[in-house]
Protein backbone atom coordinates (compact mmCIF):
# COMPACT_ATOMS: atom_id res chain seq x y z
CA UNK A 1 0.00 0.00 0.00
CA UNK A 2 0.94 3.64 -0.30
CA UNK A 3 1.07 4.40 3.39
CA UNK A 4 0.99 2.94 6.88
CA UNK A 5 -2.25 1.12 7.48
CA UNK A 6 -3.73 0.45 10.90
CA UNK A 7 -6.71 -1.67 11.82
CA UNK A 8 -9.21 -1.46 13.22
CA UNK A 9 -9.72 2.29 13.04
CA UNK A 10 -11.99 2.14 16.07
CA UNK A 11 -12.33 -0.46 18.79
CA UNK A 12 -14.69 -0.51 21.74
CA UNK A 13 -14.01 -3.23 24.26
CA UNK A 14 -15.12 -4.20 27.70
CA UNK A 15 -12.82 -3.80 30.64
CA UNK A 16 -10.83 -6.96 31.20
CA UNK A 17 -10.90 -8.15 27.60
CA UNK A 18 -7.82 -8.51 25.41
CA UNK A 19 -7.38 -6.48 22.22
CA UNK A 20 -5.07 -6.74 19.23
CA UNK A 21 -4.15 -3.75 17.12
CA UNK A 22 -2.54 -4.22 13.75
CA UNK A 23 -0.07 -2.12 11.80
CA UNK A 24 1.02 -2.63 8.19
CA UNK A 25 4.09 -0.47 7.58
CA UNK A 26 5.27 0.88 4.27
CA UNK A 27 7.00 -1.87 2.33
CA UNK A 28 10.76 -1.81 2.78
CA UNK A 29 10.69 0.23 5.98
CA UNK A 30 12.88 -1.43 8.57
CA UNK A 31 11.87 0.76 11.51
CA UNK A 32 8.45 0.53 13.11
CA UNK A 33 7.15 2.47 16.12
CA UNK A 34 4.09 2.29 18.34
CA UNK A 35 2.76 5.23 20.33
CA UNK A 36 -0.14 5.93 22.60
CA UNK A 37 -1.86 9.30 22.56
CA UNK A 38 -4.42 10.18 25.17
CA UNK A 39 -6.89 12.97 24.52
CA UNK A 40 -5.15 16.33 24.45
CA UNK A 41 -1.75 14.81 25.22
CA UNK A 42 1.45 14.26 23.30
CA UNK A 43 2.65 10.97 21.86
CA UNK A 44 3.84 8.46 24.42
CA UNK A 45 6.48 6.10 23.05
CA UNK A 46 5.66 2.41 23.53
CA UNK A 47 7.98 0.22 21.46
CA UNK A 48 10.42 0.45 18.56
CA UNK A 49 11.45 -2.26 16.10
CA UNK A 50 14.52 -1.87 13.90
CA UNK A 51 15.23 -4.61 11.39
CA UNK A 52 16.29 -7.82 13.05
CA UNK A 53 17.53 -6.15 16.22
CA UNK A 54 15.88 -6.80 19.55
CA UNK A 55 12.97 -4.36 19.96
CA UNK A 56 13.22 -1.43 22.34
CA UNK A 57 10.36 -2.11 24.73
CA UNK A 58 11.31 0.58 27.21
CA UNK A 59 8.05 2.50 26.74
CA UNK A 60 5.60 -0.30 27.41
CA UNK A 61 3.65 0.84 30.50
CA UNK A 62 2.99 -2.59 32.00
CA UNK A 63 3.30 -6.29 31.32
CA UNK A 64 -0.23 -6.22 29.94
CA UNK A 65 1.23 -4.62 26.82
CA UNK A 66 3.21 -6.56 24.25
CA UNK A 67 4.05 -6.22 20.58
CA UNK A 68 5.35 -8.47 17.86
CA UNK A 69 6.64 -7.86 14.40
CA UNK A 70 6.92 -10.42 11.63
CA UNK A 71 10.23 -9.80 9.92
CA UNK A 72 10.07 -6.32 8.45
CA UNK A 73 6.33 -6.34 7.86
CA UNK A 74 3.18 -6.35 9.92
CA UNK A 75 3.19 -5.63 13.64
CA UNK A 76 0.61 -6.40 16.29
CA UNK A 77 0.19 -4.57 19.58
CA UNK A 78 -1.65 -6.62 22.18
CA UNK A 79 -3.19 -5.26 25.33
CA UNK A 80 -4.33 -7.87 27.81
CA UNK A 81 -6.99 -7.37 30.48
CA UNK A 82 -7.76 -3.88 29.24
CA UNK A 83 -8.39 -1.09 31.74
CA UNK A 84 -10.22 2.17 31.25
CA UNK A 85 -6.94 4.06 31.41
CA UNK A 86 -5.89 2.22 28.24
CA UNK A 87 -8.44 4.26 26.30
CA UNK A 88 -6.45 6.29 23.78
CA UNK A 89 -5.44 6.51 20.15
CA UNK A 90 -2.69 4.07 19.30
CA UNK A 91 -0.47 5.26 16.49
CA UNK A 92 1.96 3.27 14.41
CA UNK A 93 4.72 4.70 12.23
CA UNK A 94 7.42 3.32 9.99
CA UNK A 95 10.57 4.67 8.43
CA UNK A 96 13.40 3.57 6.19
CA UNK A 97 16.98 3.36 7.40
CA UNK A 98 19.62 4.92 5.20
CA UNK A 99 23.26 4.49 6.20
CA UNK A 100 22.29 3.86 9.79
CA UNK A 101 19.99 6.87 10.06
CA UNK A 102 16.20 6.59 10.17
CA UNK A 103 14.54 8.77 7.58
CA UNK A 104 11.24 10.58 8.11
CA UNK A 105 8.58 8.55 9.85
CA UNK A 106 5.19 8.01 8.23
CA UNK A 107 2.25 7.57 10.55
CA UNK A 108 -0.95 5.65 10.18
CA UNK A 109 -4.32 7.12 11.05
CA UNK A 110 -4.33 5.33 14.38
CA UNK A 111 -6.67 3.01 16.23
CA UNK A 112 -9.02 4.70 18.67
CA UNK A 113 -9.46 2.33 21.59
CA UNK A 114 -12.28 2.83 24.04
CA UNK A 115 -12.50 0.62 27.10
CA UNK A 116 -15.92 0.63 28.73
Amino acid at each position, binding site marked *: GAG*VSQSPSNKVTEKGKDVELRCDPISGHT*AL*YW*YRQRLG*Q*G*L*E*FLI*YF*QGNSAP*DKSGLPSDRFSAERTGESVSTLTIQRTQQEDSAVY*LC*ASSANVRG*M*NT*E*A*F*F*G*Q*GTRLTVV
Partner: protein
Amino acid sequence: LAKTTQPISMDSYEGQEVNITCSHNNIATNDYITWYQQFPSQGPRFIIQGYKTKVTNEVASLFIPADRKSSTLSLPRVSLSDTAVYYCLVEGSSNTGKLIFGQGTTLQVKP
Protein backbone atom coordinates in the same frame (compact mmCIF):
# COMPACT_ATOMS: atom_id res chain seq x y z
CA LEU B 1 18.10 10.47 26.35
CA ALA B 2 18.08 13.85 24.65
CA LYS B 3 15.15 15.81 26.05
CA THR B 4 13.43 18.66 24.23
CA THR B 5 11.58 21.62 25.72
CA GLN B 6 9.21 23.84 23.78
CA PRO B 7 6.34 26.20 24.64
CA ILE B 8 3.02 24.53 25.33
CA SER B 9 1.03 26.92 23.18
CA MET B 10 1.27 29.93 20.87
CA ASP B 11 -1.25 32.19 19.19
CA SER B 12 -0.82 33.98 15.90
CA TYR B 13 -2.83 35.69 13.21
CA GLU B 14 -3.15 34.87 9.56
CA GLY B 15 -0.33 36.24 7.43
CA GLN B 16 2.16 36.51 10.28
CA GLU B 17 5.45 34.67 10.56
CA VAL B 18 5.56 32.24 13.46
CA ASN B 19 8.74 31.11 15.18
CA ILE B 20 8.68 28.18 17.58
CA THR B 21 11.84 27.59 19.56
CA CYS B 22 12.87 24.28 21.03
CA SER B 23 15.71 23.66 23.47
CA HIS B 24 17.74 20.44 23.46
CA ASN B 25 20.68 21.08 25.74
CA ASN B 26 22.07 17.54 25.76
CA ILE B 27 21.98 16.91 22.04
CA ALA B 28 24.70 14.52 20.90
CA THR B 29 27.21 15.13 18.13
CA ASN B 30 25.52 12.88 15.59
CA ASP B 31 21.92 13.79 16.46
CA TYR B 32 19.60 15.51 14.01
CA ILE B 33 16.73 17.86 14.84
CA THR B 34 13.38 17.04 13.31
CA TRP B 35 10.00 18.74 13.46
CA TYR B 36 6.60 17.12 12.98
CA GLN B 37 3.13 18.63 12.61
CA GLN B 38 -0.06 17.01 13.86
CA PHE B 39 -3.60 17.99 12.94
CA PRO B 40 -6.54 16.83 15.07
CA SER B 41 -7.51 13.20 14.51
CA GLN B 42 -4.45 12.53 12.37
CA GLY B 43 -1.00 11.06 12.91
CA PRO B 44 1.98 13.44 12.90
CA ARG B 45 3.55 14.47 9.62
CA PHE B 46 7.23 15.22 8.98
CA ILE B 47 7.95 18.89 8.29
CA ILE B 48 11.68 19.45 8.27
CA GLN B 49 14.99 18.11 9.53
CA GLY B 50 18.37 19.70 10.02
CA TYR B 51 21.77 19.28 11.61
CA LYS B 52 23.18 22.81 11.75
CA THR B 53 22.74 26.34 10.40
CA LYS B 54 19.65 26.75 8.23
CA VAL B 55 17.42 24.41 6.29
CA THR B 56 14.51 25.55 4.15
CA ASN B 57 11.82 23.68 2.27
CA GLU B 58 8.48 24.56 0.77
CA VAL B 59 6.77 24.44 4.15
CA ALA B 60 9.15 25.92 6.72
CA SER B 61 12.65 26.96 7.68
CA LEU B 62 14.71 25.56 10.48
CA PHE B 63 17.39 27.63 12.19
CA ILE B 64 20.03 25.92 14.31
CA PRO B 65 22.73 27.94 16.07
CA ALA B 66 26.33 26.80 16.20
CA ASP B 67 26.04 25.20 19.65
CA ARG B 68 22.96 23.23 18.48
CA LYS B 69 21.40 23.45 21.93
CA SER B 70 18.26 24.96 20.47
CA SER B 71 16.45 25.24 17.18
CA THR B 72 13.73 27.46 15.76
CA LEU B 73 11.02 26.38 13.37
CA SER B 74 9.85 29.29 11.25
CA LEU B 75 6.51 29.22 9.45
CA PRO B 76 6.15 32.08 6.98
CA ARG B 77 2.77 33.79 6.56
CA VAL B 78 0.65 31.29 8.46
CA SER B 79 -2.92 30.55 7.53
CA LEU B 80 -5.80 29.06 9.52
CA SER B 81 -4.85 25.64 8.18
CA ASP B 82 -1.52 25.83 10.00
CA THR B 83 -3.35 25.45 13.30
CA ALA B 84 -1.83 22.25 14.66
CA VAL B 85 0.52 20.80 17.23
CA TYR B 86 4.21 21.08 16.36
CA TYR B 87 6.71 18.64 17.83
CA CYS B 88 10.46 19.05 18.04
CA LEU B 89 12.49 15.83 18.21
CA VAL B 90 16.13 14.93 18.50
CA GLU B 91 17.02 11.86 16.45
CA GLY B 92 20.14 9.83 16.65
CA SER B 93 22.34 7.96 19.03
CA SER B 94 21.22 9.86 22.12
CA ASN B 95 17.78 8.33 21.70
CA THR B 96 19.07 5.04 20.28
CA GLY B 97 17.22 5.61 17.03
CA LYS B 98 13.72 5.84 18.42
CA LEU B 99 11.53 8.93 18.04
CA ILE B 100 10.64 10.56 21.34
CA PHE B 101 7.85 13.13 21.14
CA GLY B 102 7.34 15.69 23.88
CA GLN B 103 4.13 17.56 24.54
CA GLY B 104 4.56 19.73 21.46
CA THR B 105 3.49 23.31 20.86
CA THR B 106 -0.14 23.93 20.04
CA LEU B 107 -0.28 26.74 17.50
CA GLN B 108 -3.60 28.51 17.13
CA VAL B 109 -3.87 30.74 14.09
CA LYS B 110 -6.64 33.30 14.30
CA PRO B 111 -8.32 35.19 11.44
